[in-house]
């Protein structure tokens, strides 16, 4: 299982601002927020 901070930091590594916000215990709603934020950032970057 990959539920550790290190794994998530690596997964979102191209968006360092987001990886700084990753806490030790990740709640499900935080995971949703992270994914939404990442997708918004990626969308803005592409425009």
């Amino acid at each position, binding site marked *: 299982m*990959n539920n550790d901070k290190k794994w998530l930091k690596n997964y979102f590594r191209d968006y360092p601002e987001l990886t700084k916000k990753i806490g030790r215990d990740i709640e499900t709603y935080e995971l*949703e927020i992270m*994914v939404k934020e990442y997708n918004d950032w990626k969308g803005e970057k592409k425009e």
Partner: protein
Amino acid sequence: MKKIFTSFIFSLSVTVLLAQKNSSKFPGFLIATNNDTIKAQIIVSEHSNNIELSNLFREVTYIDSTGKQITVRPNECISSFQFSNKIQNYYFEKINLNDNLKKEPEYVFALRIIKGYISLYEYSANTEYVKIKPGLSPNVPTATNVSQRYFYYFLQKQNMPPSRVKRDFSFTSEFR
């Protein structure tokens, strides 16, 4: 007294009737592993007028264009399916629960919560029953068996296989 008893029985019957499980058919389609699209009516359970998705993680029953009712499981020929009620669109995709590629794959249908550059999926199942000893919790005065519901979350980058990122559990139903 008789009146009170009659009204109690009536209200109990209404509650039981309302809580009964029904099923509805929603328009949707399935994508086969060979990329064929199957237009279908997806059969979904409803509980007290709420849509019940839990059965769809392990199998999906649909009615095809000829009116034939078919049930498929994730290890069969379907890679995804979706349907829509008037409120929301639901998309399920076949995902392997087993992280270890050397082991036998354990396919399930997972619900997509977010679609994007990274998509987020959820799968849940009652996988285990546990006995809680009395006195461990003030809410549990006697030994109680509870079912433990697991929630699995997957992240998937575009054109990449999904990775399981998180597993949660909660005690959902109680029985003695």
